[in-house]
């Protein structure tokens, strides 16, 4: 584009106005995060008396001490790690070989199988039949149920399949000449060549696993198995309505608000840590994965 100086006065005003508006949008995106962070490191008394609006007041880590000394917090955190990484590993172990097979023209019934996968993008049995099915399979209140029951989804399978289909034929032919088996072909040729797509899918899985709470809430009974988001949900949503509990937490050092804010920050931090790699890959992944038959 032409250099900046060539712009007329009107254009420059337009540019400033535009930059200002974007700045405002960025600030309003950031503000809730800063607010929660400030609440989490302020004293309970300052928050309850409405003194914290942007910056923290009476700096203290009391809320974090309270949260980190809660046994259930650590159990929930550990469970989330198991569900996130165990679940993602299982997802990849099932979807990569499956998507690879679907991408091969010599697979018989390929068209029907592809349709079977794509159909689930638009229609599924729904909440109750899925729940009853999990019950029939004996997967209620089970860690295995959470890990296995949500392992695949059509979108990710199609994304991987499209990527495998785009691998040039010459790679496959060369490997076949060397007498590679189907397993070796997948492991030594297709997986290394499809790293960006696989990492994208892995990141999708990790983020959605880390953030999900609904089915854990429906399927799990015992406290020992709940993931972090469900622990958060029980404290933030269910207990906000419960004034008695909220006021029982109220001391001058921490309050219900500072404690919930501290848990939220603790749960956001891992997402922030992998966010740079998500940024790097998701643009690629999304442009690659346009869902098409």
């Amino acid at each position, binding site marked *: 584009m032409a250099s900046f100086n060539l712009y007329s006065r009107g254009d420059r005003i337009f540019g400033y106005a535009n930059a200002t508006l974007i700045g405002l949008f960025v600030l309003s995106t950031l503000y809730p995060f800063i607010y929660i962070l400030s609440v989490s490191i302020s004293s309970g008394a300052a928050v309850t008396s409405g003194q914290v609006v942007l910056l923290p007041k009476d700096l203290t880590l009391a809320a974090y001490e309270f949260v980190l000394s809660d046994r259930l917090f650590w159990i929930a955190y550990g469970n989330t790690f198991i569900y996130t990484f165990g679940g993602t590993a299982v997802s990849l172990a099932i979807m990569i070989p499956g998507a690879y097979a679907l991408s091969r023209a010599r697979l018989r019934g390929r068209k029907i199988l592809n349709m079977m996968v794509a159909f689930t993008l638009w229609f599924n049995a729904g909440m109750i039949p899925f729940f009853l099915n999990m019950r029939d399979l004996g997967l209620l209140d089970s860690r295995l149920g959470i890990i296995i029951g949500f392992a695949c989804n059509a979108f990710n399978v199609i994304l991987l399949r499209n990527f495998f289909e785009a691998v040039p034929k010459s790679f496959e032919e060369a490997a076949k000449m060397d007498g590679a088996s189907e397993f070796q072909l997948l492991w030594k040729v297709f997986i290394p060549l499809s790293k960006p797509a696989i990492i994208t899918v892995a990141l999708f899985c990790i983020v959605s696993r880390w953030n999900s709470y609904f089915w854990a809430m429906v399927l799990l009974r015992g406290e020992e198995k709940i993931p972090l988001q469900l622990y958060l949900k029980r404290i933030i949503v269910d207990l906000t309505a419960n004034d008695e509990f909220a006021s029982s937490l109220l001391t001058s050092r921490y309050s219900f608000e500072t404690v919930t804010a501290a848990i939220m920050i603790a749960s*956001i931090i891992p997402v922030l840590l992998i966010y740079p790699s998500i940024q790097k890959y998701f*643009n690629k992944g999304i442009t690659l994965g346009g869902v098409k038959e």
Partner: protein
Amino acid sequence: MIAGYFKRLGEDLRKDWQLYLLILPMLLWFMLFLYKPMEGLQIAFKDFSPFRGIAGSPWVGLENFRTLLGDQIFIRAFLNTITISGLGLIFAFPVPIVLAIMFNELQSELGRRFSQTIVYLPHFISVVIVAGIVINLLSPTTGVVNLILSSLGLERVYFLTQPEWFRTVFIGSNIWKEAGFESIVYLAAIAGISPTLYESARVDGASRWQMMWRITLPCILPTIIIMLIIRIGNLVEVGFEYIILLYQPATYRTADVVSTYVYRTGLQGTQYDLATAAGLFNAVIAFALVFAANRISRKVSTTSLW
């Protein structure tokens, strides 16, 4: 001839057995977790009792659907679903388009990258945290919004207990969470516009404002139409996992949607048959809408969803 077919099938299976072994786990998974549950859809047409099981429960035809259509609460939930989606279409849908155009007009590459990084972030935050933030910000005693209201001498409002505020809160916080991320699609479309269009417009003395309206917007119109069609196809789907976190009996009047109705009657209560019927009712409408949307998009443009 049939014998020949099976012979060839057998040969292929023997030759490519590894390929079939690779797809087996995924095939089993789809059967077990997505197709087998469809058997359970029968109970929408049955008087289901968990003790008699699916097969043992008697058929009742469309009885459950008749009950639903006579149920004020279900009708309300259905209308709420469409209202919330419709309002989202009006207020939330344009935001990512505007954002993408604004990002594109930003001169500083660094500023653009920084602001994009920030506005994509909320998409990756869980709905539980978003609900937590909303509850905190709107708290009647310590929430910032009410602190501002009271410092202006206005009455404090307990937003989350007021039915008339629910849609605003829901759609507003959804814009905060998703608008930035959704702008990616439009930015990709803008990136595909040929720079020569802008160059010749500049030679003709066009201002940036004019180029935005006469080049950028028309060029991304096909993308906008496709996204609009997808949205209309999803008219009966709302983010119920988020609604469950924000609503309470006091706000059911505007907040209860079909999925939350299914959750309450089926999973919190145990009226499995009625809840399944409600879910199926919604799913069939959703499927028909998506199907129709795809037909339309195939006519409007050469692109279709499948």
